[in-house]
């Protein structure tokens, strides 16, 4: 590329401030998508657990949403919600549902029946049983869903850069670097985005360790 070095360190050091801002925006966009997606998915999962017949429909719809290309969805949404944060968030939120719902449902399904039988037999009310037994025991698989959704969303946030300069987080640098044939920008955007995904994933692993000290991490003899 015109004999330029792969990384222009001078550019990098001159732009630390804006890069930090983009990291912040990236995390902000991803955090909204993951938390709103989680709330919606939790409700859908709760519904699917109560009414098993609805579960296949929920799964089909969530999967269908996932098949829509993100470019297409952004383009379609601009006509409705304009260049607002909704346009960026709605696809990101929809994509998380297919990752969350099956994990949340599996988490509650994984609670052993004998534990539920014991809880009922000892006089837990249904509310107490849910808060004190089912929810804590569903945590490992729910957190597995959070890991998947956050890694996936952090990657996808970059695509929202096509909506304009005020979106995309680190995706801005990827797009800008592509237009300007400026590798340094592409590398900064791409590698930092990967780095954020890895950090988020490790964060959730740590969270899970803290939340579930009771989970057997290795087989114990006897």
């Amino acid at each position, binding site marked *: 590329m015109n004999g330029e070095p792969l990384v222009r360190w001078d550019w990098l050091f001159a732009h630390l401030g804006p890069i930090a801002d983009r990291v912040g925006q990236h995390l902000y966009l991803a955090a909204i998508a993951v938390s709103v997606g989680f709330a919606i998915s939790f409700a859908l999962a709760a519904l699917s657990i109560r009414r098993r017949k609805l579960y296949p429909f929920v799964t089909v719809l969530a999967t269908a949403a996932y098949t829509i290309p993100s470019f297409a969805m952004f383009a379609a949404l601009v006509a409705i919600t304009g260049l607002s944060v909704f346009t960026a968030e709605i696809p990101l939120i929809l994509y998380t549902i297919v990752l969350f719902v099956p994990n949340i449902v599996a988490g509650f399904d994984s609670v052993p029946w004998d534990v539920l*039988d014991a809880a009922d037999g*000892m006089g837990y009310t249904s509310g107490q049983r849910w808060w004190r037994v089912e929810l804590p025991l569903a945590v490992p698989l729910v957190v597995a869903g959070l890991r998947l959704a956050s890694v996936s969303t952090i990657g996808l946030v970059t695509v929202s850069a096509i909506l304009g300069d005020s979106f995309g987080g680190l995706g801005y640098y990827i797009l800008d670097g592509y237009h300007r044939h400026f590798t340094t920008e592409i590398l900064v955007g791409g590698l930092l985005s990967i780095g954020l995904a890895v950090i988020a994933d490790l964060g959730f692993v740590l969270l899970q360790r803290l939340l579930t000290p009771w989970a057997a991490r290795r087989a114990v003899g006897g």
Partner: protein
Amino acid sequence: MSSLGPPAGYTGAARSLGAASRTGAAALEFRGVTKRYGRGEQAHGAVNDLSFEIPSGAICVLVGPSGCGKTTSLKMVNRLIEPTAGEILLDGVNVLTEDVTALRRRIGYVIQQVGLFPHLTVGRNVAVVPALVGWSKERQWVRADELLSLVGLDPASYRSRYPYQLSGGERQRVGVARALAADPPLMLMDEPFAAVDPIVRERLQDEFLRLQRDLAKTILFVTHDIDEAIKMGDFVAVMEEGGRLAQFGPPDEILAHPASDFVARFVGADRGLKRLSLVTIADLELAPLAASARAGLPTFSPSTKLRDALSVLLAADSRGGVALDEEGQPRGLVTVDAIASALAEDRHAATAASAATTGVSGAAGDAKVAAAGGDS
């Protein structure tokens, strides 16, 4: 009841009636209890017109082949399953009229798979019911430690462990401790020792019987294993397919006088030998023993079961053995003939015991008065 002598299998109830006042055990009565699934033509009975009564402080074992409705019967007591018809009376009060949550919190519940909460430490598992009924944290901890010691687990090393760090036998002990935590007057135990290996099972059974001697809880115990039923029960309720009660009585009576072909088949052709496991050397009338005749004979401690003694005598091809007293001093001569005649005598006692069961409601009533007196 003392006038009846020591009919094996009934001694438990007699012994516990006295203790009932201390711990507040409750009498339990099934009155025409029926559970049907389905409606109309398709309706089939899981439990059919079940009626029997357990005096407070006694262990009653529901035993029968799989599908006979024994677990269904047990789960109707704490209303995990609601009966279609009939009444279940706990100290005279129909459980169907009570608040279901409050009812369950005062009934201990132990199941085969234990159902320990994997996310709670052993100590918090034990303290689950005290926590539900609002004991202070400190009282919960004290109680949990007390119960862990009671079931033979050192609180200091076990209270902070998680269930996955326990062996099957240890889990089962924690399960029993948890069921005892709020000092319930009634315990429901559904195949509590079935999931552990035979050696551990026997140890847990023995320990539980030893505990029960002090606790004197009223216990409804379900098993498919007739040997366990005979060992654990003050009363045995044999159930057959269709959820019918085939026979109810002290174990010795069931073994000595099976009420039907089904019961006879279910208890097995070796029911005579099984009866011998209900009687110990201490209960046996002994022939006098000359000091010179002792040499080379096998010896038996007072707690040796007649079944084991007979086995030793037959294996040693010996005409007799020496019964020892608690201090290990010779007490008299045990012979195969003496054991055989004990079986005949015992049959006589069993008939007397059977007469006593019909009077059980009176005895339970007495115990209830005693319990009420002790509680107030």
